[in-house]
């Protein structure tokens, strides 16, 4: 049986420094994780208040995976994050108020009410807006990597997919093409062990999704997705390797989806012991205590960060709530791009 490499936890501040993070970075990552969860928790409240149309999804339990990988990416790298990867948008710098506006379908959301929830991205920040169809963004990310190879740019594309979506042909064709051409891409699998209600053993027959990587000619790595530092280190390795021409890596972040598939789903099908076990390694709590033990995080710092996040989100909510409804007159606009739309750095 092919076995993917299992990543080690990061022990000490020293190891983290080696991986390229100083204390400020660590506190920044912690803050980003808090913002990520805070946005989704407030989104939940907004939903209950009837302010969010349609359905509502969160990535609770996946904050460390999303933030860890995005932290390892360089500004010039690009990515196609999914519905559990809010942390990626946060690290790349999307302003929370615009996310709330997106949730509520307002004019100031990145899609101006045309699309909803995490179906958004700020192209200026190197992210591409996901579609619902999973994992249809992998071929797109592969095309970004192909571009970097054609233009010989030292940039990497990151494509996310769930362990359930690993069953679809798009994942296979992307990895086949990227593997045969050694394209600069990192395939990140958010393995939260369930695809809606479907358990992993009905989606793939190996122990890990990453065990499949060698079938595509590159390395597979499994990392504990609740350990932001381990995720960061493995992501950085994979990114550096791709940047240096070493080709793709499949990085699997193992977590458990800590809420229902969407807000309407009570996830009765997830065994309680499993939930309890994973609740015990909550990514935020885990990182917080690591910071206290290894980076002398003080009560004052903690309170300050928490308070800052709270202020940020509260004002973001207010600002988002002031955002107008989109104008029906804009509905039919923008189906086709006009030449001016290409006057962007990308298209020079």
């Amino acid at each position, binding site marked *: 049986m092919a076995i993917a490499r299992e990543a080690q936890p990061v022990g000490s501040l020293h190891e983290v420094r080696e991986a390229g993070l100083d204390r400020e970075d660590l506190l920044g990552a912690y803050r980003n994780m808090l913002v990520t969860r805070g946005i989704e928790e407030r989104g939940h409240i907004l939903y209950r208040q009837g302010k969010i*149309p*349609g*359905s509502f999804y969160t990535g609770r339990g996946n904050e460390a995976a999303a933030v860890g990988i995005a932290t390892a990416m360089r500004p010039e790298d690009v990515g196609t994050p999914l519905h559990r990867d809010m942390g990626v948008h946060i690290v790349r710098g999307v302003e929370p108020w615009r996310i709330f506006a997106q949730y509520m*379908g*307002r004019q100031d959301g990145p*899609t101006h*009410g*045309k*699309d*909803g*929830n995490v*179906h958004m991205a700020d192209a200026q920040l190197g992210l591409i807006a996901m*579609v*619902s*169809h*999973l994992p249809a963004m992998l071929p797109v990310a592969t095309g970004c990597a192909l571009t970097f190879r054609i233009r010989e740019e030292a940039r990497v594309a990151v494509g996310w997919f*769930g362990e*359930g*979506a690993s*069953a*679809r*042909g798009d994942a296979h064709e992307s990895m086949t093409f990227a593997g045969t051409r050694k394209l600069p891409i990192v395939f990140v699998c958010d393995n939260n062990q369930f*695809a*809606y*209600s*479907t358990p992993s053993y*009905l*989606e*793939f027959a190996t122990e890990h999704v990453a065990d499949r990587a060698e079938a595509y000619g590159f390395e597979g790595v499994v990392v504990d997705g609740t350990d932001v530092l381990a995720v960061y280190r493995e992501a950085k390795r994979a990114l550096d390797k791709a940047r240096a021409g070493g080709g793709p890596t499949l990085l699997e972040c193992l977590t458990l989806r800590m809420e229902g598939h969407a807000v309407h789903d009570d996830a009765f*099908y997830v065994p309680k012991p499993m939930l309890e076990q994973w609740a015990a390694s909550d990514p935020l709590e885990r990182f917080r205590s690591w910071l206290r033990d290894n980076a002398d995080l003080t009560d004052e710092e903690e309170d300050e960060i928490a308070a800052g996040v709270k202020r940020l989100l509260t004002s973001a909510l207010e600002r988002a709530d002031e955002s107008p*409804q*989109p104008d*029906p007159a*804009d*509905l*039919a606009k923008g*189906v086709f791009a006009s030449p001016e739309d290409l006057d962007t750095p990308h298209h020079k």
Partner: protein
Amino acid sequence: MAELTYLQAISDGLRTEMRRDKRVFLIGEDVGVYGGAFKVSLGFQEEFGPWRVIDAPLAETAIVGSCTGAAIMGMRPVAEMQFADFISCGWDQLVTVAAKQRWRAGTPVPMVVRLPSGGGFSGGPFHSQNPESSFAHIPGLKCVCPATPEDAKGLLISAIEDPNPVLYFEHKHLYRRIKGEVPEERYTTPIGKARIHRDGDDVSVITWGAMVYTADEAAQQLESDGVSVEIVDLRSVMPWDKAAVLDSARKTSKVLVLHEDTRTGGFGGEIAATIAEEAFEDLDAPVKRIAAPDTPVPFSPVLEKAYIPQVEDVVAGLRQLAEY
């Protein structure tokens, strides 16, 4: 007779066939343990077991292709797409294999694909589409779009019985909103036969699915102005009941074709062109089409209201025709 919701009628039809015919099985994402995203198959796995109510991997090509193979082996597969939108991932299997196998190789492919479709609840661009027009153009595929609970049950049973691949479009916005009397026993609703939803003399509306109710509200409003509107609920888009449509067109001599899918290249064009060609001498006004604008389906309720044809839009269109 029992009063059932549209959703219950679908479950009832499926359960009826699965009890009657052990060749019938259901396969799809989360249809088993979870009972389906919309709970159409709630309790089915307990009753029929895990090999007749199959939780598939997230792989529409495998789902549709497996049904094709199973159908050829003598089964009566029913595939559930979690949302109709995701059938785009099974497009090739349907149009390349299932649709053409009977004509090319003489092999019938009796299968059903259930497609929860339609908008009206901010599902956004990928949970709201009405892709029936795309499939109605492919020779070898049948498309049915029930509007009432009674037809929902009868057409599902007909679809399962039919020796061809049948796409069964179940409109999500009708699931729990629409209730109606549904016979408890087994019955079929003929594929390809329209239903006169409302009798009228002055203007005809040709439509299907959720738009039947939009048309009905509009018709009620026009009644007060003394304009009598006939509503033809097509029920099947492929094959479609040309005879019933032409009869109504000749009777009223003014026709509005209405659908929720986008306008350009939508199946309404086929219907309008046919009426305009074959009832040319009988028409007192141009055949009018009302449909969604040529955009994806928007998420924001404000935008979605502007996207999906509303009662006001239909009222305006009918007035125009009446006054023509």
